[in-house]
Protein backbone atom coordinates (compact mmCIF):
# COMPACT_ATOMS: atom_id res chain seq x y z
CA UNK A 1 0.00 0.00 0.00
CA UNK A 2 1.25 3.45 -0.87
CA UNK A 3 2.22 5.86 1.88
CA UNK A 4 -0.74 7.88 3.05
CA UNK A 5 -0.73 11.40 4.42
CA UNK A 6 0.01 11.10 8.13
CA UNK A 7 -2.16 13.21 10.35
CA UNK A 8 -0.21 15.19 12.87
CA UNK A 9 3.09 15.48 10.99
CA UNK A 10 2.39 18.98 9.66
CA UNK A 11 1.41 21.79 11.99
CA UNK A 12 0.80 25.49 11.75
CA UNK A 13 3.47 27.04 13.97
CA UNK A 14 3.31 30.69 12.97
CA UNK A 15 0.86 33.24 11.65
CA UNK A 16 1.15 36.85 10.58
CA UNK A 17 -1.48 39.18 9.20
CA UNK A 18 -1.62 42.86 8.32
CA UNK A 19 -4.62 45.00 9.14
CA UNK A 20 -6.72 45.28 5.97
CA UNK A 21 -6.65 48.76 4.45
CA UNK A 22 -8.32 50.62 1.62
CA UNK A 23 -5.03 52.32 0.80
CA UNK A 24 -1.76 50.39 0.83
CA UNK A 25 0.14 53.67 1.27
CA UNK A 26 2.25 53.19 -1.84
CA UNK A 27 3.49 49.77 -0.79
CA UNK A 28 3.55 46.93 -3.29
CA UNK A 29 2.34 43.34 -2.92
CA UNK A 30 5.97 42.32 -2.26
CA UNK A 31 6.25 44.83 0.58
CA UNK A 32 3.05 43.59 2.18
CA UNK A 33 4.09 39.95 1.79
CA UNK A 34 7.42 40.66 3.46
CA UNK A 35 5.85 42.35 6.44
CA UNK A 36 3.38 39.48 6.99
CA UNK A 37 6.18 36.91 6.55
CA UNK A 38 8.29 38.65 9.19
CA UNK A 39 5.41 38.52 11.66
CA UNK A 40 4.78 34.82 11.02
CA UNK A 41 8.45 33.85 11.38
CA UNK A 42 8.61 35.70 14.68
CA UNK A 43 5.34 34.16 15.83
CA UNK A 44 6.77 30.70 15.11
CA UNK A 45 9.95 31.41 17.05
CA UNK A 46 11.98 30.76 13.91
CA UNK A 47 14.66 32.62 11.98
CA UNK A 48 14.33 33.51 8.32
CA UNK A 49 17.05 30.96 7.53
CA UNK A 50 14.80 28.19 8.89
CA UNK A 51 12.31 28.73 6.05
CA UNK A 52 12.97 26.04 3.45
CA UNK A 53 9.67 26.04 1.54
CA UNK A 54 7.77 28.89 -0.13
CA UNK A 55 4.22 28.70 -1.48
CA UNK A 56 2.79 31.99 -2.70
CA UNK A 57 -0.55 33.07 -4.09
CA UNK A 58 -0.50 35.26 -7.21
CA UNK A 59 0.25 39.00 -7.07
CA UNK A 60 -2.58 41.47 -7.59
CA UNK A 61 -0.71 44.07 -9.61
CA UNK A 62 2.75 42.72 -10.48
CA UNK A 63 3.63 40.33 -13.29
CA UNK A 64 2.92 36.62 -12.59
CA UNK A 65 6.14 35.73 -14.38
CA UNK A 66 8.42 33.68 -12.10
CA UNK A 67 6.42 35.03 -9.18
CA UNK A 68 7.78 32.65 -6.47
CA UNK A 69 11.26 33.56 -7.63
CA UNK A 70 10.43 37.27 -7.48
CA UNK A 71 9.19 36.85 -3.92
CA UNK A 72 12.20 34.77 -2.84
CA UNK A 73 14.57 37.40 -4.22
CA UNK A 74 12.75 40.35 -2.65
CA UNK A 75 12.75 38.64 0.77
CA UNK A 76 16.12 36.93 0.28
CA UNK A 77 14.81 33.43 0.92
CA UNK A 78 16.51 30.25 -0.32
CA UNK A 79 13.79 27.60 -0.31
CA UNK A 80 14.49 24.04 -1.39
CA UNK A 81 11.01 23.98 -2.91
CA UNK A 82 8.74 26.79 -4.08
CA UNK A 83 5.64 27.32 -6.17
CA UNK A 84 2.70 29.59 -6.91
CA UNK A 85 -0.77 28.30 -6.09
CA UNK A 86 -3.53 29.78 -8.26
CA UNK A 87 -6.98 28.59 -7.21
CA UNK A 88 -8.56 32.04 -6.99
CA UNK A 89 -10.02 32.59 -3.53
CA UNK A 90 -9.06 29.01 -2.60
CA UNK A 91 -5.38 29.72 -3.26
CA UNK A 92 -4.54 30.57 0.35
CA UNK A 93 -6.15 27.41 1.78
CA UNK A 94 -4.52 25.58 -1.14
CA UNK A 95 -1.05 26.67 0.00
CA UNK A 96 -1.71 25.11 3.43
CA UNK A 97 -2.76 21.75 1.96
CA UNK A 98 0.31 21.71 -0.30
CA UNK A 99 2.63 22.79 2.49
CA UNK A 100 1.27 19.95 4.63
CA UNK A 101 2.13 17.52 1.82
CA UNK A 102 5.66 18.92 1.45
CA UNK A 103 6.24 18.70 5.20
CA UNK A 104 4.69 15.25 5.48
CA UNK A 105 6.88 14.02 2.62
CA UNK A 106 9.98 15.32 4.39
CA UNK A 107 10.80 17.80 1.60
CA UNK A 108 10.44 20.87 3.84
CA UNK A 109 10.74 21.52 7.56
CA UNK A 110 9.23 24.98 7.64
CA UNK A 111 7.12 26.02 4.67
CA UNK A 112 6.08 29.67 4.38
CA UNK A 113 2.60 30.16 2.88
CA UNK A 114 2.23 33.74 1.70
CA UNK A 115 -0.66 35.67 0.24
CA UNK A 116 -1.57 39.27 -0.21
CA UNK A 117 -2.24 42.03 -2.65
CA UNK A 118 -2.84 45.69 -3.29
CA UNK A 119 -6.31 46.76 -4.29
CA UNK A 120 -6.36 49.21 -7.18
CA UNK A 121 -9.56 51.21 -7.15
CA UNK A 122 -8.68 52.75 -10.52
CA UNK A 123 -8.88 49.39 -12.24
CA UNK A 124 -11.42 47.44 -10.20
CA UNK A 125 -14.71 48.74 -11.56
CA UNK A 126 -13.73 48.99 -15.21
CA UNK A 127 -13.97 46.77 -18.26
CA UNK A 128 -10.25 46.10 -17.91
CA UNK A 129 -10.68 45.12 -14.27
CA UNK A 130 -13.53 42.73 -15.11
CA UNK A 131 -11.64 41.21 -18.05
CA UNK A 132 -8.57 40.59 -15.90
CA UNK A 133 -10.46 37.87 -14.02
CA UNK A 134 -12.23 36.32 -17.04
CA UNK A 135 -11.28 33.31 -19.13
CA UNK A 136 -11.10 33.75 -22.91
CA UNK A 137 -14.36 31.78 -23.18
CA UNK A 138 -16.01 34.26 -20.82
CA UNK A 139 -14.64 37.21 -22.77
CA UNK A 140 -15.88 35.72 -26.06
CA UNK A 141 -19.30 34.35 -25.11
CA UNK A 142 -20.29 35.95 -21.78
CA UNK A 143 -18.96 39.52 -21.68
CA UNK A 144 -21.24 40.68 -24.56
CA UNK A 145 -24.21 40.18 -22.21
CA UNK A 146 -23.00 42.54 -19.49
CA UNK A 147 -22.17 40.17 -16.62
CA UNK A 148 -21.04 42.01 -13.48
CA UNK A 149 -18.13 39.75 -12.64
CA UNK A 150 -18.53 37.79 -9.45
CA UNK A 151 -21.63 39.79 -8.46
CA UNK A 152 -23.74 38.41 -11.30
CA UNK A 153 -22.30 34.91 -10.89
CA UNK A 154 -23.26 34.67 -7.23
CA UNK A 155 -26.58 36.40 -7.97
CA UNK A 156 -27.43 33.49 -10.32
CA UNK A 157 -26.78 31.05 -7.47
CA UNK A 158 -28.79 33.07 -4.94
CA UNK A 159 -31.73 33.47 -7.34
CA UNK A 160 -31.88 29.75 -8.09
CA UNK A 161 -31.62 28.87 -4.38
CA UNK A 162 -34.39 31.32 -3.50
CA UNK A 163 -36.59 29.96 -6.27
CA UNK A 164 -35.90 26.28 -5.60
CA UNK A 165 -35.98 26.26 -1.80
CA UNK A 166 -37.83 29.38 -0.71
CA UNK A 167 -34.75 30.91 0.92
CA UNK A 168 -35.52 34.48 1.98
CA UNK A 169 -33.51 37.71 1.75
CA UNK A 170 -33.83 38.01 5.55
CA UNK A 171 -32.16 34.62 6.06
CA UNK A 172 -29.25 35.54 3.79
CA UNK A 173 -28.89 38.92 5.51
CA UNK A 174 -28.64 37.21 8.93
CA UNK A 175 -25.23 35.80 7.89
CA UNK A 176 -23.80 39.31 7.38
CA UNK A 177 -25.40 40.44 10.65
CA UNK A 178 -23.86 37.63 12.76
CA UNK A 179 -20.46 38.15 11.18
CA UNK A 180 -20.64 41.85 11.99
CA UNK A 181 -21.34 40.98 15.62
CA UNK A 182 -18.03 39.07 15.54
CA UNK A 183 -16.23 41.92 13.79
CA UNK A 184 -17.26 44.36 16.53
CA UNK A 185 -14.67 42.54 18.67
CA UNK A 186 -11.98 42.59 16.00
CA UNK A 187 -10.00 45.85 16.00
CA UNK A 188 -8.47 44.89 12.62
CA UNK A 189 -11.81 44.62 10.79
CA UNK A 190 -12.46 47.23 8.11
CA UNK A 191 -16.10 47.43 9.23
CA UNK A 192 -16.41 47.37 13.02
CA UNK A 193 -17.83 50.83 13.70
CA UNK A 194 -21.40 49.73 14.30
CA UNK A 195 -23.45 46.52 14.46
CA UNK A 196 -25.70 45.58 11.55
CA UNK A 197 -29.35 44.59 11.55
CA UNK A 198 -31.20 42.51 8.97
CA UNK A 199 -33.10 45.70 8.10
CA UNK A 200 -29.78 47.52 7.45
CA UNK A 201 -28.70 44.81 5.02
CA UNK A 202 -32.03 44.77 3.18
CA UNK A 203 -32.09 48.59 3.02
CA UNK A 204 -28.69 48.70 1.33
CA UNK A 205 -28.76 49.12 -2.47
CA UNK A 206 -29.57 46.05 -4.58
CA UNK A 207 -26.44 45.98 -6.75
CA UNK A 208 -27.27 42.88 -8.77
CA UNK A 209 -30.66 41.51 -7.80
CA UNK A 210 -30.94 39.59 -5.45
CA UNK A 211 -27.62 40.74 -3.89
CA UNK A 212 -27.58 43.76 -1.58
CA UNK A 213 -24.46 45.88 -1.13
CA UNK A 214 -23.95 44.67 2.46
CA UNK A 215 -23.93 41.02 1.28
CA UNK A 216 -21.01 41.71 -1.04
CA UNK A 217 -17.37 41.67 -0.03
CA UNK A 218 -15.35 44.89 -0.10
CA UNK A 219 -11.97 44.50 -1.86
CA UNK A 220 -8.98 46.04 -0.08
CA UNK A 221 -5.25 45.63 0.46
CA UNK A 222 -3.43 43.37 2.88
CA UNK A 223 -1.36 40.26 3.37
CA UNK A 224 -1.20 37.18 5.57
CA UNK A 225 1.42 34.52 6.18
CA UNK A 226 1.27 31.06 7.72
CA UNK A 227 4.14 28.73 8.50
CA UNK A 228 3.55 24.99 8.23
CA UNK A 229 6.22 23.01 10.06
CA UNK A 230 7.28 19.49 10.81
CA UNK A 231 7.17 18.70 14.50
CA UNK A 232 10.60 19.15 16.10
CA UNK A 233 11.36 21.86 13.58
CA UNK A 234 14.03 23.43 15.76
CA UNK A 235 11.88 26.33 16.90
CA UNK A 236 11.25 27.47 20.45
CA UNK A 237 7.56 26.43 20.00
CA UNK A 238 5.96 29.69 21.03
CA UNK A 239 2.45 28.23 20.79
CA UNK A 240 0.67 24.92 20.94
CA UNK A 241 0.93 23.63 17.40
CA UNK A 242 -2.25 23.48 15.35
CA UNK A 243 -2.17 20.36 13.26
CA UNK A 244 -3.43 19.94 9.73
CA UNK A 245 -5.65 16.97 10.46
CA UNK A 246 -7.14 16.59 7.00
CA UNK A 247 -7.79 18.37 3.74
CA UNK A 248 -9.79 17.86 0.58
CA UNK A 249 -10.21 19.66 -2.68
CA UNK A 250 -12.74 19.53 -5.50
CA UNK A 251 -13.49 21.19 -8.79
CA UNK A 252 -16.38 21.03 -11.25
CA UNK A 253 -16.34 24.20 -13.39
CA UNK A 254 -14.59 27.48 -14.05
CA UNK A 255 -17.51 29.66 -15.14
CA UNK A 256 -20.69 29.16 -13.07
CA UNK A 257 -22.70 29.10 -16.33
CA UNK A 258 -21.39 25.59 -17.02
CA UNK A 259 -21.53 24.25 -13.44
CA UNK A 260 -23.38 20.92 -13.06
CA UNK A 261 -25.57 22.61 -10.42
CA UNK A 262 -26.02 26.20 -9.28
CA UNK A 263 -27.13 25.25 -5.78
CA UNK A 264 -24.90 22.28 -4.98
CA UNK A 265 -21.20 23.09 -5.06
CA UNK A 266 -17.98 21.07 -5.17
CA UNK A 267 -17.54 22.00 -1.48
CA UNK A 268 -19.55 18.84 -0.77
CA UNK A 269 -16.88 16.59 -2.30
CA UNK A 270 -14.01 18.65 -0.87
CA UNK A 271 -15.43 18.49 2.66
CA UNK A 272 -16.13 14.76 2.37
CA UNK A 273 -12.54 14.13 1.36
CA UNK A 274 -11.26 16.27 4.24
CA UNK A 275 -13.55 14.50 6.74
CA UNK A 276 -12.44 11.12 5.48
CA UNK A 277 -8.76 12.00 5.85
CA UNK A 278 -9.31 13.47 9.32
CA UNK A 279 -11.58 10.66 10.48
CA UNK A 280 -14.20 13.10 11.77
CA UNK A 281 -17.56 14.44 10.59
CA UNK A 282 -19.50 17.70 10.67
CA UNK A 283 -20.82 17.00 14.18
CA UNK A 284 -17.27 17.00 15.57
CA UNK A 285 -16.46 20.51 14.31
CA UNK A 286 -16.30 23.25 16.98
CA UNK A 287 -15.98 26.28 14.69
CA UNK A 288 -15.88 27.13 11.00
CA UNK A 289 -14.05 29.64 8.86
CA UNK A 290 -15.94 29.73 5.57
CA UNK A 291 -14.92 31.71 2.53
CA UNK A 292 -17.43 34.53 2.44
CA UNK A 293 -17.27 36.65 -0.68
CA UNK A 294 -21.09 36.84 -0.45
CA UNK A 295 -23.69 35.72 2.08
CA UNK A 296 -24.95 33.05 -0.36
CA UNK A 297 -21.43 31.52 -0.40
CA UNK A 298 -21.63 30.86 3.34
CA UNK A 299 -25.14 29.42 3.09
CA UNK A 300 -24.19 27.01 0.28
CA UNK A 301 -21.01 26.05 2.22
CA UNK A 302 -22.97 25.21 5.39
CA UNK A 303 -25.32 22.98 3.39
CA UNK A 304 -22.65 21.25 1.33
CA UNK A 305 -20.36 20.58 4.33
CA UNK A 306 -23.35 18.89 5.95
CA UNK A 307 -24.38 21.14 8.85
CA UNK A 308 -27.91 20.98 7.45
CA UNK A 309 -29.64 19.37 4.49
CA UNK A 310 -29.56 20.84 0.99
CA UNK A 311 -32.17 23.56 0.69
CA UNK A 312 -32.51 24.03 4.46
CA UNK A 313 -29.62 26.50 4.81
CA UNK A 314 -31.98 29.46 5.04
CA UNK A 315 -33.82 28.05 8.03
CA UNK A 316 -30.54 26.82 9.54
CA UNK A 317 -28.89 30.25 9.57
CA UNK A 318 -32.11 31.83 10.82
CA UNK A 319 -32.24 29.42 13.79
CA UNK A 320 -28.49 29.18 14.50
CA UNK A 321 -26.35 31.71 16.33
CA UNK A 322 -23.30 31.96 14.06
CA UNK A 323 -21.47 34.41 16.32
CA UNK A 324 -18.50 33.55 18.58
CA UNK A 325 -21.04 32.93 21.39
CA UNK A 326 -23.20 30.61 19.32
CA UNK A 327 -23.57 26.88 18.73
CA UNK A 328 -21.69 27.04 15.41
CA UNK A 329 -19.24 29.96 15.50
CA UNK A 330 -18.65 31.03 11.91
CA UNK A 331 -16.07 33.55 10.70
CA UNK A 332 -15.37 34.81 14.19
CA UNK A 333 -13.08 37.56 12.88
CA UNK A 334 -16.04 39.00 11.01
CA UNK A 335 -15.17 37.24 7.78
CA UNK A 336 -14.28 39.03 4.61
CA UNK A 337 -17.75 40.61 4.69
CA UNK A 338 -16.68 42.70 7.70
CA UNK A 339 -12.86 42.61 7.46
CA UNK A 340 -12.62 43.29 3.74
CA UNK A 341 -11.24 41.02 1.02
CA UNK A 342 -7.48 41.51 1.05
CA UNK A 343 -7.01 40.11 -2.44
CA UNK A 344 -5.72 36.51 -2.24
CA UNK A 345 -5.07 36.96 1.50
CA UNK A 346 -8.81 37.21 2.14
CA UNK A 347 -8.85 33.42 2.06
CA UNK A 348 -5.85 33.26 4.41
CA UNK A 349 -7.77 35.28 7.02
CA UNK A 350 -9.99 32.22 7.48
CA UNK A 351 -6.90 30.14 8.30
CA UNK A 352 -5.29 32.68 10.66
CA UNK A 353 -8.54 33.20 12.57
CA UNK A 354 -9.07 29.45 12.99
CA UNK A 355 -5.50 29.17 14.33
CA UNK A 356 -6.09 32.03 16.83
CA UNK A 357 -9.25 30.33 18.05
CA UNK A 358 -7.62 26.90 18.36
CA UNK A 359 -4.70 28.41 20.29
CA UNK A 360 -7.13 30.24 22.57
CA UNK A 361 -5.69 33.59 21.51
CA UNK A 362 -8.83 35.20 20.06
CA UNK A 363 -9.30 37.57 23.00
CA UNK A 364 -12.83 38.85 23.62
CA UNK A 365 -14.21 36.85 20.69
CA UNK A 366 -12.69 33.55 21.86
CA UNK A 367 -15.06 30.61 21.40
CA UNK A 368 -15.66 28.13 24.22
CA UNK A 369 -15.04 24.83 22.45
CA UNK A 370 -11.89 25.03 20.36
CA UNK A 371 -10.48 21.61 19.52
CA UNK A 372 -11.42 21.20 15.87
CA UNK A 373 -11.92 23.82 13.15
CA UNK A 374 -13.00 23.53 9.53
CA UNK A 375 -11.71 26.09 7.05
CA UNK A 376 -12.96 26.36 3.48
CA UNK A 377 -11.38 28.26 0.63
CA UNK A 378 -13.54 28.97 -2.41
CA UNK A 379 -12.33 30.34 -5.72
CA UNK A 380 -14.14 31.78 -8.73
CA UNK A 381 -17.89 31.30 -8.53
CA UNK A 382 -17.96 28.15 -6.37
CA UNK A 383 -15.37 26.80 -8.81
CA UNK A 384 -12.29 25.68 -6.88
CA UNK A 385 -12.62 24.36 -3.33
CA UNK A 386 -10.08 23.57 -0.65
CA UNK A 387 -11.33 22.36 2.71
CA UNK A 388 -8.95 22.09 5.70
CA UNK A 389 -9.53 20.47 9.06
CA UNK A 390 -7.31 21.91 11.78
CA UNK A 391 -6.90 20.40 15.25
CA UNK A 392 -5.36 21.63 18.45
CA UNK A 393 -3.10 18.91 19.80
Amino acid sequence: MSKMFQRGQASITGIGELKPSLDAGGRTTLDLLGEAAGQAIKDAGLHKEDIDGLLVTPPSEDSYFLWPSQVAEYLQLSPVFMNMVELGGASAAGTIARAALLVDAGICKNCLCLSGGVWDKQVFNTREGKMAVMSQAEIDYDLPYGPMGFNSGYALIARRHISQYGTTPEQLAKIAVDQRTNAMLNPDALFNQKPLTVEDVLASPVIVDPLHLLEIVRPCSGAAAVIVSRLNNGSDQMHDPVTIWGFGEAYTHNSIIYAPSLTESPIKAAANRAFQMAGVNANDIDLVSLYDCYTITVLISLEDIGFCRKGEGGKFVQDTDLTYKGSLPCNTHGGQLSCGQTSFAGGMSHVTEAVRQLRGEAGPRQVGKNRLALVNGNGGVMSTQCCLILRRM
Partner: protein
Amino acid sequence: MPDYKDIYWQKLATGKLWLQFCPSCQKFIFYPRGLCPYCLEPELEWTPASGQGKVHSYAIVNVSALPEFKEETPYIYAVIELAEGVKMPSNLIDCSLDKVHVDLPVELTFIERDGKTLPVFKPSEEA
Protein backbone atom coordinates in the same frame (compact mmCIF):
# COMPACT_ATOMS: atom_id res chain seq x y z
CA MET B 1 -9.17 33.21 -35.09
CA PRO B 2 -9.68 29.43 -34.83
CA ASP B 3 -12.18 27.96 -37.32
CA TYR B 4 -14.70 27.10 -34.64
CA LYS B 5 -14.99 30.69 -33.42
CA ASP B 6 -15.19 31.90 -37.00
CA ILE B 7 -18.05 29.50 -37.85
CA TYR B 8 -19.96 30.42 -34.69
CA TRP B 9 -19.85 34.17 -35.35
CA GLN B 10 -20.42 33.80 -39.12
CA LYS B 11 -23.61 31.82 -38.53
CA LEU B 12 -24.76 34.44 -36.02
CA ALA B 13 -24.12 37.19 -38.56
CA THR B 14 -26.71 35.50 -40.80
CA GLY B 15 -29.19 35.28 -37.90
CA LYS B 16 -28.61 31.66 -36.92
CA LEU B 17 -27.38 30.06 -33.70
CA TRP B 18 -25.46 26.89 -34.49
CA LEU B 19 -24.11 24.49 -31.91
CA GLN B 20 -21.32 21.98 -32.07
CA PHE B 21 -22.33 18.32 -31.78
CA CYS B 22 -20.05 15.39 -31.03
CA PRO B 23 -21.08 12.39 -33.18
CA SER B 24 -19.20 9.99 -30.96
CA CYS B 25 -20.66 11.23 -27.61
CA GLN B 26 -24.00 12.26 -29.13
CA LYS B 27 -23.78 15.44 -27.07
CA PHE B 28 -24.18 19.12 -27.89
CA ILE B 29 -21.37 21.42 -26.86
CA PHE B 30 -21.36 25.04 -25.70
CA TYR B 31 -19.10 27.06 -25.93
CA PRO B 32 -17.38 26.28 -29.26
CA ARG B 33 -14.13 24.36 -28.92
CA GLY B 34 -11.45 22.71 -31.00
CA LEU B 35 -12.42 19.31 -29.65
CA CYS B 36 -15.13 17.53 -27.73
CA PRO B 37 -14.56 18.17 -24.01
CA TYR B 38 -16.16 14.81 -23.13
CA CYS B 39 -14.19 12.40 -25.32
CA LEU B 40 -11.48 14.76 -26.67
CA GLU B 41 -12.26 13.80 -30.31
CA PRO B 42 -11.48 16.72 -32.62
CA GLU B 43 -14.11 15.89 -35.28
CA LEU B 44 -17.26 17.84 -34.42
CA GLU B 45 -20.39 18.58 -36.44
CA TRP B 46 -22.35 21.85 -36.54
CA THR B 47 -26.10 21.92 -36.28
CA PRO B 48 -28.73 24.68 -35.96
CA ALA B 49 -30.14 25.14 -32.45
CA SER B 50 -33.88 24.66 -31.97
CA GLY B 51 -34.03 28.10 -30.36
CA GLN B 52 -36.17 26.79 -27.49
CA GLY B 53 -35.05 26.91 -23.90
CA LYS B 54 -35.81 28.02 -20.38
CA VAL B 55 -34.34 30.39 -17.82
CA HIS B 56 -32.12 28.31 -15.53
CA SER B 57 -31.42 31.37 -13.38
CA TYR B 58 -31.12 35.11 -13.78
CA ALA B 59 -29.68 38.24 -12.22
CA ILE B 60 -31.06 41.74 -12.61
CA VAL B 61 -28.12 44.08 -13.05
CA ASN B 62 -28.89 47.45 -11.45
CA VAL B 63 -25.33 48.76 -11.37
CA SER B 64 -22.97 47.97 -14.26
CA ALA B 65 -19.27 48.77 -14.50
CA LEU B 66 -19.33 48.25 -18.27
CA PRO B 67 -19.70 51.60 -20.06
CA GLU B 68 -21.97 50.31 -22.86
CA PHE B 69 -24.37 48.84 -20.29
CA LYS B 70 -24.69 51.85 -18.00
CA GLU B 71 -27.66 53.19 -19.99
CA GLU B 72 -29.24 49.72 -20.17
CA THR B 73 -29.73 49.13 -16.44
CA PRO B 74 -31.71 47.44 -15.10
CA TYR B 75 -31.23 44.53 -17.50
CA ILE B 76 -31.63 40.78 -17.18
CA TYR B 77 -28.49 38.66 -17.39
CA ALA B 78 -29.45 35.00 -17.50
CA VAL B 79 -28.28 31.42 -17.84
CA ILE B 80 -30.42 29.82 -20.53
CA GLU B 81 -30.77 26.05 -20.67
CA LEU B 82 -31.34 25.18 -24.31
CA ALA B 83 -33.59 22.29 -25.39
CA GLU B 84 -30.38 20.60 -26.60
CA GLY B 85 -29.25 20.33 -22.97
CA VAL B 86 -26.46 22.91 -23.00
CA LYS B 87 -26.39 26.10 -20.95
CA MET B 88 -25.33 29.50 -22.23
CA PRO B 89 -25.10 33.02 -20.84
CA SER B 90 -27.42 35.54 -22.47
CA ASN B 91 -29.83 38.40 -21.94
CA LEU B 92 -33.58 38.15 -21.58
CA ILE B 93 -35.26 40.91 -23.56
CA ASP B 94 -38.88 42.00 -24.12
CA CYS B 95 -39.63 40.77 -20.62
CA SER B 96 -40.71 42.98 -17.74
CA LEU B 97 -38.77 42.53 -14.53
CA ASP B 98 -41.83 41.25 -12.67
CA LYS B 99 -42.49 38.56 -15.30
CA VAL B 100 -39.10 36.87 -15.26
CA HIS B 101 -38.77 33.72 -13.18
CA VAL B 102 -36.66 30.58 -12.94
CA ASP B 103 -37.78 27.97 -15.54
CA LEU B 104 -39.57 30.58 -17.69
CA PRO B 105 -39.82 29.12 -21.25
CA VAL B 106 -37.92 31.33 -23.69
CA GLU B 107 -37.15 31.46 -27.39
CA LEU B 108 -34.21 32.66 -29.41
CA THR B 109 -34.03 36.08 -31.00
CA PHE B 110 -31.18 38.35 -32.05
CA ILE B 111 -29.89 41.82 -31.31
CA GLU B 112 -27.09 43.93 -32.72
CA ARG B 113 -24.55 45.08 -30.12
CA ASP B 114 -21.06 46.45 -30.67
CA GLY B 115 -21.22 45.55 -34.38
CA LYS B 116 -22.01 41.91 -33.60
CA THR B 117 -25.18 39.88 -33.94
CA LEU B 118 -25.85 38.29 -30.57
CA PRO B 119 -28.23 35.47 -29.68
CA VAL B 120 -30.57 36.60 -26.89
CA PHE B 121 -33.87 35.26 -25.59
CA LYS B 122 -37.42 36.47 -25.03
CA PRO B 123 -40.39 34.81 -23.31
CA SER B 124 -41.91 32.08 -25.52
CA GLU B 125 -45.12 32.95 -27.38
CA GLU B 126 -47.06 30.31 -25.45
CA ALA B 127 -45.62 31.43 -22.06
